[in-house]
């Protein structure tokens, strides 16, 4: 996939973010978080610009980016399907749900489909245990799921935009 | 904020807005607001109660509404509950409502001429 998110415009926005946090103590995390908002991910090129901007070695930045699960080196799919694997969801049957979606999309949790349309994530507890088992597709929430609901939901997004 | 007095002032003002959620007991003014009540003019009566009670900053009074009390010909009807006592007022106007607040709720004197007893005689 072409790296069209590494645009001049996005880098300009990043420079503003760096400028804004320039004198803050412990600025790296907020800068990375805002950079990921801008680019959708944190590839080496973005890390390099941050390294020069706030004067922190690349090795430190790479270490931080790869430590936290929310930072990603590669772009995510158009739709991110996150299935909650918190304890409450797990004991109410989240595992077969992930397996079903993985089977339908042909990707394992943590992967993005070849056409960059779907990313599947087995996520940590999102704290909506009253609706267990629960999953989200981008901003949309699907709660109190049963296995039979899955094909319809996934097919809906498969059709969209294709 | 520079003083406790300022906080106290905000608190007093703000408490007015939320007292509905914490009050138990006290006086309950129940307005009959079924179709018959509304048709007979219960809404302006209720609004008069709301306005007057707020104007006088009465504590411990809750205005609530109920369905048909069952005597449609006597609407708008209002019942005032205070402890064990219940007074039923009938055929009220907004003017009567203000009088009831001033006389009954503030001074504890039942407005006899508006009660169901006076009307049914």
């Amino acid at each position, binding site marked *: 996939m072409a790296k069209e998110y590494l645009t001049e415009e996005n880098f300009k926005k990043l420079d503003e973010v760096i400028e804004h946090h320039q004198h803050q103590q412990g600025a790296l995390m907020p800068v990375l978080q805002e950079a990921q908002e801008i680019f959708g991910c944190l590839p080496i090129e973005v890390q390099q610009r941050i390294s020069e901007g706030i004067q922190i070695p690349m090795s430190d930045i790479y270490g931080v980016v790869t430590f936290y699960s929310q930072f990603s080196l590669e772009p995510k799919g158009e739709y991110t399907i996150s299935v909650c694997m918190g304890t409450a969801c797990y*004991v109410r049957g989240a595992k077969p749900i992930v397996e079903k979606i993985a089977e339908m999309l042909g990707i394992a949790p943590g992967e993005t489909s070849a056409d960059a349309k779907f990313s599947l994530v087995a996520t940590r507890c999102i704290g909506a245990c009253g609706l267990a088992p629960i999953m989200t597709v981008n901003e949309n929430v699907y709660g109190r799921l049963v296995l039979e609901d899955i094909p319809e939901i996934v097919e809906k997004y498969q059709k969209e935009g294709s | 904020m520079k003083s406790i007095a300022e906080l106290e002032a905000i608190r007093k003002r703000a408490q007015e807005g939320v007292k509905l959620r914490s009050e138990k007991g006290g006086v309950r003014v129940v307005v009959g607001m079924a179709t018959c009540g509304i048709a007979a003019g219960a809404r302006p009566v209720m609004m008069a109660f709301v306005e007057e009670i707020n104007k006088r900053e009465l504590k411990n009074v809750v205005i609530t509404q109920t369905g048909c009390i069952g005597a449609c010909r006597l609407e708008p009807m209002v019942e005032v509950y205070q402890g064990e006592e219940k007074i039923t007022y009938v055929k009220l106007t907004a003017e009567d409502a203000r009088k009831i607040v001033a006389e009954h709720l503030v001074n504890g004197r039942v407005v006899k001429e508006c009660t169901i007893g006076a009307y049914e005689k």
Partner: protein
Amino acid sequence: MDLYRSHVLVCGGTGCASSESGRIIDNFNELLIEHGLDKEVKIVKTGCFGLCEAGPVVVVYPEGAFYSMIKVSDVPTIVEEHLLKGRIVTDLLYKDHTTSETMNSIDEVGFYKKQRRVALRNCGVINPESIEEYIAFDGYQALGNVLTEMSPNQVIDIVKRSGLRGRGGGGFPTGTKWEFTQKAVGDLKYVACNADEGDPGAFMDRSVLEGDPHAIVEAMAIAGYAVGASKGFVYVRAEYPIAVKRLQIAIDQAKENGLLGEDIFGTGFNFDMEIRLGAGAFVCGEETALIASIEGKRGMPRVRPPFPAVKGIFDKPTLLNNVETFANIPQIILKGAEWFASIGTEKSKGTKVFALAGKINNTGLLEIPMGTTLREAIYDVGGGIPNGKAFKAVQTGGPSGGCIPAEYLDTPIDYDNLIALGSMMGSGGMIVLDEDNCMVDVARFFLDFTEEESCGKCTPCREGTKRMHELLDKIVDGKGTMDDVAKLETLAKTIKGASLCGLGQTAPNPVLSTLKYFRHEYEAHVLDHKCPAGVCSALLQYLVVPDLCKKCGICAAKCPVNCISGVKGKEVYLIDQDKCIKCGACMDACPFKAIKKG
């Protein structure tokens, strides 16, 4: 402030917001205008009511009518019947699971009866985005009293005498922590709030931040005064966008009103605070890892001492408390140490918030006095187990805790009793398991979690959790030996003793507690190659019950690997166990329920 005859409270907590409470609020507002009621009735978006199972929840005052599972399509009915005509819509009221009775008022609901709300007192009562409503319920009164009437030592003395202990899991006496930080030498000190609530199934901190964010702002300012700090950090996990937004609103409102900033209440005391976001690392709930993360480093724990009270954020003395701990502070100041100490047990004072989830009727948040028994929490407040299933265990304390079996249900809940049972209080997650849950599988689930979340710094945790996970995999696949079970136990004890931080030291608890109370389930997997709960697919067998089989052949047609043989109309069908992939398609397909799992 405008006055209204009726208030409609709609839950805007994450649970209810996930089921469209935002659209419900919009719909109420539109309909009120349409019916000309917008000057009489006020719609208030509140924090979590706690009874998430019944969400989205709507409460109408002054009646206190408790509507549950409200859909957008129910809104017109509530407006037209209840708000316009004053008739409570009985069909939409909450129904108690245990009695099936319809509950008219929020005060009658069994879920709330045994609760005592201190930390959650404002959640579901006030609009969290309004500083005025917080002030109306005595907000910032405690800060005012502290700044104008008390010395820092007096504040610390009250917190110490209250007996409050850290609600994040450790249970360390809060007042002592404050005293250490106050006595530490430093030109600059910090107060930090740990809102990196990572235990799966625990969401009380999120609910406090969403439902009563000003309580945290106020408490941190009080703590700042007591220990001599002028700056606060709140470290919130990034998975909680609503909580972050509301906390930011609260901080901004407090600044506008001069309750944060310089010269608060004209006393010369300065305090400011900012939010820092986590990025998805469970270990950052550990205090030294959290500090590293705020500093912009990998969130890895370090050896203590020095404790954060001496050397914390940017090497300055730092007071670090959890959200629920802070939420108790303003009430302790207002009502006194004796009042707080009168609630609870001898060594655990006050109340504790639990997040009740799993196989339970009333999923949600409950705040109960310390010393309430597990049985009361699960049956009286939680409403028991759904679908007539049998209780098997309750898992407390998240991945650091353990599973407690039925024979200990009458144990009063406090820090020390739970530890004695091989579990712990943790942050207050309480997951109920029923007969359909396999305890070996549950232990494996937690190991999967801790293995992935181990930061990798120390060997016992990094390698040990991986090896334990492998052994558990072997057992659930039916390939384990009793030697593996023994190895598992030795390994668990070693990791517990040798790990650097709390994550590693407690990671073996799920294994050790299930081995202690449910060893027979491990033995069934190893010796009999059976999973008693029917969860572990490698140990399952699908069998045709000859007496029930009508020889129709539907199962054979459905089988994706053609492992079912028989002759249609003549012969009972048979499943070839060597070829069977245990997908369950045959069982689902059989119209006569002639295939069973065993």
